[in-house]
């Protein structure tokens, strides 16, 4: 190869080539254009979905997911942000992927409720589960939550602290500990408010379960919530996050302490009221129905559509204390090959399921929630 007469020029060309190769790998943003600011058009402003973008790598898929949520008519999304991914070393933050998700969501006109959890290795004892966080790590988590709230100031206004802490698995395979969770909340709350007073702290996100006291797998959500209050959690959250799964029951089935159904959330609401928190709102951050052909807690696809639309309508008309209802789950990055796939509204290839199309028609006022498919 013939060299140029100017070695400086050669070096500059080489550097430019290297930069051209390296830059796209340093930023997610080179791959998709944001486009003009969008807004959600819907007849039901409480509609939401839980997205699953945590492990979605490709930016165009993140954008396409959020675009389809907007086109369906849901103004709210709940998304999971992993502490371990965003603070890989103590005090070292990497917001790249979270920025991408949240900026695309905001661009689509969506409001993001951010769920925080997943403990980095440096914040927990060796050989413990990624959901294990004991009291020695609470301040680290509070600092992370505050950093998150500060970084996303103006873009995220609701943060869920942990997920389903009433299940042993979600509590690092330890016995569940409502007082411990209350303490975590009360460490996080002032730290986040100091960093960003506009942020609202969501607590609970309890799994609807009938597990009795003493079960090795968890504790039922009603007892757990009361024990949270007993431990002083009340002043340490602004909104209760609730999970409302219907299983085989219609959304109008009456609530009962010994049944898991959609209206069980009303029992949580009663506990809030009994503990002086009637003025606080509830956000349903997971919920809905499954339509697998054989799972014993599933319904038929047509019933799922009917129940889901009725649930959205119920949140809008009957539950003024509910701000939003997020259906689990919009789309999985990859199929699980199990009945879990039958919770989604959109296939992995972005093909909309019937439930997506019917929900979209409902949001546009083209379909009544009572109509049969």
């Amino acid at each position, binding site marked *: 190869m013939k060299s140029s007469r100017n070695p400086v020029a050669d070096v500059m060309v080489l550097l430019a080539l290297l930069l051209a190769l390296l830059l796209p790998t340093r930023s997610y943003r080179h791959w998709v254009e944001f486009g003009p600011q969008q807004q959600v058009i819907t007849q039901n402003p409480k509609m939401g979905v839980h997205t699953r973008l945590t492990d979605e790598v490709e930016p165009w898929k993140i954008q396409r997911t959020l675009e389809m949520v907007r086109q369906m008519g849901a103004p709210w999304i709940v998304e999971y942000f992993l502490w371990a991914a965003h603070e890989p070393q103590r005090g070292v933050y990497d917001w790249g992927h979270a920025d991408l998700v949240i900026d695309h969501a905001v661009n689509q006109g969506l409001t993001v409720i951010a769920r925080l959890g997943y403990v980095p290795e440096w914040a927990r004892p060796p050989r413990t589960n990624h959901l294990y966080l004991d009291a020695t790590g609470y301040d680290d988590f509070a600092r992370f939550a505050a950093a998150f709230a500060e970084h996303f100031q103006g873009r995220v206004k609701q943060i869920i602290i942990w997920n389903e802490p009433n299940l042993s*698995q979600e509590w690092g*395979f330890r016995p569940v500990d409502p007082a411990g969770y209350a303490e975590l909340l009360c460490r996080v709350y002032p730290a986040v408010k100091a960093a960003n007073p506009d942020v609202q702290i969501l607590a609970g996100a309890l799994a609807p379960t009938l597990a009795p006291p003493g079960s090795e797998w968890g504790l039922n959500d009603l007892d757990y919530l009361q024990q949270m209050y007993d431990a002083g959690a009340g002043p340490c959250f602004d909104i209760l996050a609730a999970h409302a799964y219907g299983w085989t029951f219609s959304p109008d089935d009456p609530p009962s302490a010994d049944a898991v159904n959609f209206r069980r959330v009303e029992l949580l609401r009663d506990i809030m009221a009994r503990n002086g928190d009637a003025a606080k709102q509830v956000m349903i951050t997971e919920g809905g129905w499954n339509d697998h052909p054989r799972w014993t807690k599933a319904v038929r696809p047509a019933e799922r559509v009917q129940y889901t639309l009725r649930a959205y309508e119920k949140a809008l008309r009957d539950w003024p204390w509910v701000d939003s209802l997020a259906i689990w789950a919009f789309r999985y990055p990859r199929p699980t090959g199990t009945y879990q796939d039958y919770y989604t509204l959109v296939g992995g290839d972005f093909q909309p399921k*019937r439930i997506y199309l019917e929900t979209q028609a409902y949001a546009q006022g083209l379909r009544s929630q009572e109509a049969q498919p």
Partner: protein
Amino acid sequence: MTRRRWAIVALLLLVALLAGLLVRRTLLGSGDRTWARIRQTGVWRVGMDPSFPPFENLDGVTGLPAGFDVDLARVIAARWGVRAEFVGVGFDQLMDAVVANRVDSAISALTVAPHRTEEMRFSEPYLEAGMVLAVPESSRLRPALEAVGGRSGEPAMAEVAQPLAGQRVVAEWGSEGDALARRLQAQVNGDLRLVLRNSTDDALRAVLAGEADVAIVDAISLALFAGDGGSLVAVGQPLRSDPYAIVVPKHAPELLRQVNEALAALRDDGTLAAPTGAVATCCILTFSRCFPACSPASSMTAS
């Protein structure tokens, strides 16, 4: 000490080391503590979510776990001379329960999850439960559909769609079969008539009644339908593959080897049909309790 004596001592040490390793491998299974404990206690702790018939559910009379996965665990345990003990675990928690060593294995209609192989190990698949095309045994479409997709792997939708052009394809409204049918329809520019029914069984009945040429359903629904006397067969490769496998801890290589050996033996003796390839009707499983119309290829010795 002379050089020769040193050599003899070194040789003896080497032999002792090798003998020790051999004994350890024999007794403990390559340092596999899970397998060693199963052997020592005579109990194999199997996690499952008993809410998924016909694979695992609670028997209405006895309240005990019953179903295909329960039978499978018992048959494997019996081969090892141990007892399968079932632990009810919520589905969401099953894989993590294995990782956390709360159970020795999970058998609960779990599919191989390649993205989780860093944390756990999956056995060879024991059953294919994916979405299939079902036609009458005498269907003229069989040769063309069986030729699609070669011997293994999910076939391309465009390839499957060609023989279906101009045909009537039935599925349950809103189901996975409905979604796949709409994708196939798009591949042939709409030249495929989509017939929708209110349930999977109604969709299969529509084929038997001549109201549709092909149904798209999951392999297990088809097997159950066939078990009830419906004479439809699956053709070609699954449109979407869902291979069920047994999950074991990452650091349990001997347990994994034993599980795979047991599955291979069950396949060889006909207790368990091959999990890949074209899915037959009821005889993808030969456990008569799950599929009453099947004839067990071998007698079970479940404990």
